[in-house]
């Protein structure tokens, strides 16, 4: 986003968020794109229409999105009111670009897509807890994923 395009109050609010910094700098490489198995992780609070909506429960971290999900299968229960949702209302690819990835698989640009993708709600009680993230990582490894794409809102 362009911070200069929002009001002074909004800019101050956004810049006041504390971001973690790390002493180590992990870096994992992988095969060429056409051999990559790709998964999405989104922080947009997306989940299946019949799934439990997200609440601010630190013990309830993520939802699983099956790889064969269709656009009408996903809804959003993120708590924040400040980010734009009008894009997502019209096209799920704005937040969850699965159609774009499916096209790239059929064009042979990337290898394949994961059986499962993951979603969580970035408004939570313990924003920096690594354990549930490591759990998602171990699930992605079981799914033979070697490229994880991250989409915030």
């Amino acid at each position: 986003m362009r911070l200069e395009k929002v009001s002074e109050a909004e800019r101050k609010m956004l810049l006041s968020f504390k971001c973690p910094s790390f002493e180590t700098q992990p870096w994992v490489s992988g095969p060429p794109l056409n051999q990559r198995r790709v998964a999405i992780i989104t922080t947009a609070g997306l989940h299946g229409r019949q799934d439990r909506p997200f609440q601010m429960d630190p013990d309830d971290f993520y939802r699983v999105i099956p790889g064969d999900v269709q656009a009408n299968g996903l809804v959003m229960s993120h708590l924040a009111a400040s980010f734009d949702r009008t894009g997502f209302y019209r096209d799920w690819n704005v937040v969850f670009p699965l159609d774009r990835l499916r096209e790239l698989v059929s064009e042979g640009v990337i290898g394949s897509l994961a059986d499962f993708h993951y979603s969580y709600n970035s408004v939570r009680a313990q924003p920096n807890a690594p354990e549930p993230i490591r759990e998602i990582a171990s699930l992605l490894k079981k799914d033979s994923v070697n490229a994880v794409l991250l989409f915030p809102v």
Partner: protein
Amino acid sequence: MLSHFIEEEGLPTTGISLIRPHTEVIKPPRALWVAFELGRPMGPPNNAAFQKRVMMSLLRLLEAPSGPLLEDFPDDEPESSDELTVLACPENFYQAATETMETDLLESAFRQEINALRPWYDMAVAKRKRTTVGVSGIDIEALWHFIYTFVVGKEPENPRKDLSLAYMLKFAVEDLKSYYIEGITAEPSQEGVSSQVLQDWFWDETKAGQVLLELKKVCEASPDKMMNMIGGHFIVPGEVARRKVE
């Protein structure tokens, strides 16, 4: 943050950055900063060619030999030719819109407005083969009543056992917003209207916006802490709330 831990577990990551100064501190292994507004990491809706370019820029970071990498996607969202479209509303939307409207008049105007949008909402669902309405599980026909009951200081019956009334209210409010925006953007030549025009329309010109601004006040005065938080932060966008107070 997310990418740091996943990469530590041995998986390569690449991600969109929306707020560049945050990414500069976190230093994820690979990030593509985009100029698009919050809520749109892939850019404009219904523009597959543009989204594909964003996606390719994001994927190409995976081919770099070393990092951390923070690249900038070069383009802003394309300007829409519909930017200045005045959103057409059914006639009865323009019924006396006074700040001091009696609550029962506001209630009936709110109901009328919801009903008037219904053909366009139905059209939107048919055209897009999807809807984002449905998180609360409350039928569209019952949404207005559920929300309006809070506005007049009462508590409706909670139709679900797994969510508190405060959460139910939040999700009902989001269902209402989805309903309005999905509907109005299905009207002729309004599919590509900018988020700003849609936001201004919803909060300045609709009865729904007026109802939700009233609802915010009611929640903020509630003895229930969760209601306070929902009303204080999660019903009206901060930018809108500040503008309406000033």
